[in-house]
């Protein structure tokens, strides 16, 4: 297994990517690693949380919740143990950033974990990685061992008297375990059905890998510096995952004012579209984020700006579709995923996702009937309203995640759906998609 290629532009979080042995603690310490933890151990827990609040760090797992605020919700007078659960499930289609942190710089995350635990008073942290991350799990496992040997974890973190254990937990292939309560159920050894209690019934903070990797730089360089890199409401830089039909897909660390257009065309990033192709549509934040048309891509890859466009920054997965893409087939691929991954607890999600998938397949195969589009939109609306206003009619946000793409694709590319139905065939011709590779 090879390590994924390092991107061209590297700043706060991706600084070490691609350097030889960047995953080893010896190299990490040469870069100044674990200095931030030393600093944090000398601080009052509330002072750490305040620093993170002032940095304007927002969660990078999907919802963009302010991290310092989340930590401050952990009750201080509750006698129960507290836990940190690290979300390395990385399963939202189009998202592949956390794996680079795990591959290239696992200690950056581990240092963030130790600081977070000190801040919230947790003595145990569980790092949950999706089951398919075999190589990444080996890297993290080795890094945790190194950290124990170096006294980062154990009875007394760096001699401070603070006790902290850190364990790796591997999933086994289920997207819903990335949802934070599903994650907790899975760590408890159950199927990942979303529920509402903390790990082992105790106060628990769930944070994404990238969120935690942002913590050591904040402690080192200060909240003001980190906040200054971002916008009013959102500090720091962001990892974005560029995929689909662009010349150079990859993970890029960008400033919050970088637009989708820049990401696609800038020589530092995507290097434009393949010869003769134009952008048709872009999904800006993982496959559950409502799609944007080519006219809507002059927008910053940032939480508030994307919200203004009725979509979301989500997990940073930017998927580009060129002008030869069949939008019906693209949506079928997306919807099929949510149908497969519904945990089945809520009726609208369990029944609605497969229904929408079947309708889309039918339309793509040229068997669609005029009323199918209305049925499709009604089923989607029964799961979640559009534009997104928070949680729809289901227990967890997977319902919204599956309904929003349907609503946005059909609204913005209605003519293509109608054309399939009118012509009784896919106007894009026979699939499989043949733009890349020679598989015939």
């Amino acid at each position, binding site marked *: 297994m090879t390590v994924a290629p390092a991107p061209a532009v590297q700043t706060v979080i991706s600084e070490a990517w691609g350097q030889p042995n960047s995953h080893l603690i010896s190299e990490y310490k040469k870069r100044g690693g674990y200095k931030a933890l030393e600093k944090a151990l000398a601080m009052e827990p509330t002072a750490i949380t305040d620093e993170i609040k002032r940095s304007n760090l927002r969660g990078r797992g999907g919802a963009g919740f302010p991290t310092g605020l989340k930590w401050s919700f952990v009750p201080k007078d509750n006698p129960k143990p507290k836990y940190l659960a690290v979300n390395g499930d990385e399963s939202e*289609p189009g*998202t592949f950033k956390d794996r680079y942190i795990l591959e290239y710089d696992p200690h950056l995350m581990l240092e963030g974990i130790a600081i977070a635990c000190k801040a919230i008073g947790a003595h145990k942290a569980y790092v949950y990685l999706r089951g398919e991350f075999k190589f990444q799990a080996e890297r993290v496992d080795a890094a945790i061992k190194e950290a124990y040997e170096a006294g980062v974890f154990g009875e007394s973190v760096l001699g401070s008297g603070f006790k902290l254990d850190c364990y790796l937990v591997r999933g086994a292939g289920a997207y819903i375990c990335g949802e934070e309560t599903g994650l907790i159920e899975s760590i408890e050894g*159950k199927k990942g059905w979303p529920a509402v209690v903390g790990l082992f019934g105790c106060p628990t903070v769930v944070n994404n890998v990238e969120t935690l990797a942002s913590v050591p730089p904040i402690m080192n360089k200060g909240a003001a510096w980190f906040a200054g890199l971002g916008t009013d409401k959102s500090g720091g830089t962001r990892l974005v995952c560029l995929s689909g039909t662009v010349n150079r897909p990859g993970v890029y660390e960008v400033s919050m004012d970088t637009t989708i257009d820049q990401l696609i065309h800038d020589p530092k990033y995507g290097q434009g579209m393949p010869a003769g192709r134009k952008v048709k549509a872009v999904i800006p934040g993982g496959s559950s984020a409502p799609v944007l048309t080519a006219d809507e891509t002059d927008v910053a890859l940032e939480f508030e700006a994307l919200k203004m466009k009725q979509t979301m920054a989500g997990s940073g997965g930017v998927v580009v579709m060129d002008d030869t893409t069949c939008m019906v087939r693209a949506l079928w691929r997306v919807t099929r995923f949510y149908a497969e991954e519904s945990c089945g607890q809520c009726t609208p999600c369990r029944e609605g996702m497969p229904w929408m998938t079947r309708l889309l397949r039918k339309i793509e195969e040229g068997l669609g009937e005029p009323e199918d589009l209305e049925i499709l939109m009604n089923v989607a609306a029964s799961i979640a309203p559009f534009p997104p206003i928070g949680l729809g009619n289901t227990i967890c946000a997977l319902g919204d995640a599956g309904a929003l793409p349907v609503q946005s694709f059909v609204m913005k590319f209605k003519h293509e759906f109608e054309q399939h139905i009118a012509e009784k065939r896919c106007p894009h011709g026979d699939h499989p998609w043949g733009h890349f590779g020679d598989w015939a």
Partner: protein
Amino acid sequence: MADPVFSPDDQKLFDSRLADILTRYPADRKSAAMLPALRMMQEILGWCPPEGLRLVAERLEVKPERAYEVASFYVMFHTEKPGKYVVDVCTNLSCSLRGAEGMLAYLERKLGVKAGHGNEQWLLREAECLASCGTAPCLQVNEDHHENLTTREKVDAIFANLG
């Protein structure tokens, strides 16, 4: 008396690793070790047979149904014996945009099995996004990950050494 699930050596290995894993969880939460226990069993046996699920349930002090429920919930656990090699091809959007559907069709021809089906040698499945969208298309063979599969030669090379 049913046949033992593991050989005596494997049983020892399984029990000692399980004991170590159990130290990570609260003492009254043994069942939290369910996923690691099932994974260990599958590493040894290649799948999760019914008698194995019963053994895991017994060790973790839960009902056998609970072990079965968990094993069948996660796609990586096999409650039916799969072929020797499980081939998971991502056909999610980013991979499909870069040729995954063509690659899957090529593999169906090459391996002589349709997606979703298998024989003694192969189980070929369409997988969901494997976090390689930037290095698409990709696939996994028994959990070994391969990405950047832009040509037939690269795919052929993966299968050249699998008999």
